[in-house]
């Protein structure tokens, strides 16, 4: 479980996050949602320590990240896997080399064991036969899978995903979402996903934190989102006519009497 308490962060005098508190639960896919520019990337980067907030505390199962020294941070990071928006695969390494990288860097396994583990991770994300290709030679969806395989190679306790679906078609997005949901349950990880894809929100949102203009506006899950009375959330999630119709339908058929 990761707890964020009273986080405030500003850049050049402009406050991006205002006193944000949130709890991210173990074994669940925790979604941070919000418009572009609402501060969700800053929030996720603050939690992993790529950005240092001015005020607040971040607790990884009770361990305060802000109070840690360099060695403790380094050890904690071995428990963290992160999936970046652009996949961030190493261009100079093959697909297999990318997944093997954290293993050869941080474990004492033999080269054969490392290869086995890397192949296992690639199979887990349903990627076969691309071992010797370079990241530039495979599609965006495949790159995302490789990045997920690399992130889970060290069996992390915490998995962070920064917009895992950006730039992917809806079908591939759903596959990636389901993959993230499956591995979260399988390995009982604390998964934090930063997204503005409504398919993800309604499909895998087991715990949703809605950030609006730097404030934490709403917390709930994908079932509560239909009945939420929060105006900003409603406008953001059900932005187009189709989603509005879906919402009306769900409210009439599944939650009679709730909502408007």
């Amino acid at each position, binding site marked *: 479980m990761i707890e964020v308490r009273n986080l405030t962060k500003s850049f050049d005098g402009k406050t991006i996050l205002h006193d944000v508190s949130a709890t991210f639960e173990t074994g669940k896919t925790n979604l941070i949602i919000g418009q572009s520019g609402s501060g969700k990337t800053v929030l996720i980067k603050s939690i*992993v320590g*790529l950005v240092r907030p001015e005020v607040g505390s971040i607790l990884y199962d009770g361990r305060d990240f802000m109070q840690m020294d360099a060695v403790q*941070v*380094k*050890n*904690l*990071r*071995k428990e*963290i896997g*992160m999936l*970046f*928006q*652009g996949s*961030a*695969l*190493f*261009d100079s390494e093959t697909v297999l080399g990318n997944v093997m*990288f*954290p293993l*050869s*860097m*941080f474990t004492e396994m033999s080269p054969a064991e490392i290869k086995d583990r890397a192949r296992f991770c690639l199979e887990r994300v349903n990627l076969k036969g691309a071992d010797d290709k370079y990241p530039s030679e495979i599609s965006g969806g495949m790159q995302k899978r490789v990045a997920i395989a690399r992130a889970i190679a060290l069996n992390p306790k915490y998995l*962070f995903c920064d917009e895992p679906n950006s730039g992917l078609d809806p079908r591939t997005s759903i596959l990636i979402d389901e993959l993230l949901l499956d591995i979260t349950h399988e390995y009982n990880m604390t998964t934090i996903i930063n997204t503005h894809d409504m398919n993800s929100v309604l499909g895998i949102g087991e715990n949703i934190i809605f950030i609006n203009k730097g404030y934490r506006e709403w917390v709930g899950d994908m079932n509560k989102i239909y009945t939420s009375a929060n105006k900003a959330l409603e406008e953001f999630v059900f932005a187009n006519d189709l989603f509005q119709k879906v919402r009306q339908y769900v409210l009439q058929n599944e939650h009679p009497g709730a909502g408007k």
Partner: protein
Amino acid sequence: MIITESLNTFGRYCLFMKRVFTVPDKWRIFFSRTVFEISKLGVDSIPLVIVISIFIGAVITIQMQLNITSPLIPAYSVGLATRDIVLLEFSNSILCLILAGKVGSNIASEIGTMRVTEQIDALDIMGVNSANFLVLPKVVGFLFYMPILVAFCIATSFIGGFFVAAFTDIIPVSRFIYGMQAFFQEWYVWYGFIKSLFFSVVISSVAAFYGYYVRGGALEVGKASTNAVVASSILILLLDVVLTKLLLQ
């Protein structure tokens, strides 16, 4: 304004170097990366070094001949002047200025691209000291390979000069070769090698510094690689003055 900015940049460079020069996490990976960098930065530069050196060696010989056509100066002084110019300045300072363009821009754009595509962030998140992991093998590899490039440069420059003596009639071959050997000072060779070692560290570390702190996109990567070449060229010339004063006087 410029002074405070330069001092600020120099301070950040020093802090960056502090992160680079730490003990690698895994020596085995460090060595294999160093060998890879030697091949990429060093061995791949040999063709460029050879081509440039042959031409410049020939040009120096021709220009010396043009400038020293006097009955008072012995003909062998063309060989002597060619040798000393190559040993003192061309095979180290000028060669490093050329390599700053090739190797420096390569390092800055590679590391800069890794920064803007979040690959460096990915390394940091894994708990790898990205500055040390990416930059130290380049600095060490290039440092080790620099004397070899200088040796290649010296040898091929002399061959270029020799070609002019052999295939034109502006100077007899025997006079040229005699001049090459006359009044030889061994220290000049060591002086050139010592200078080149300093320059190699400047090229690789300054370029890595500019690449590492890129913010933005492809345009900024291009700018960083230009800035890296400009800054390392100026530093090479500055160090050249300081080292010449220290080593030759």
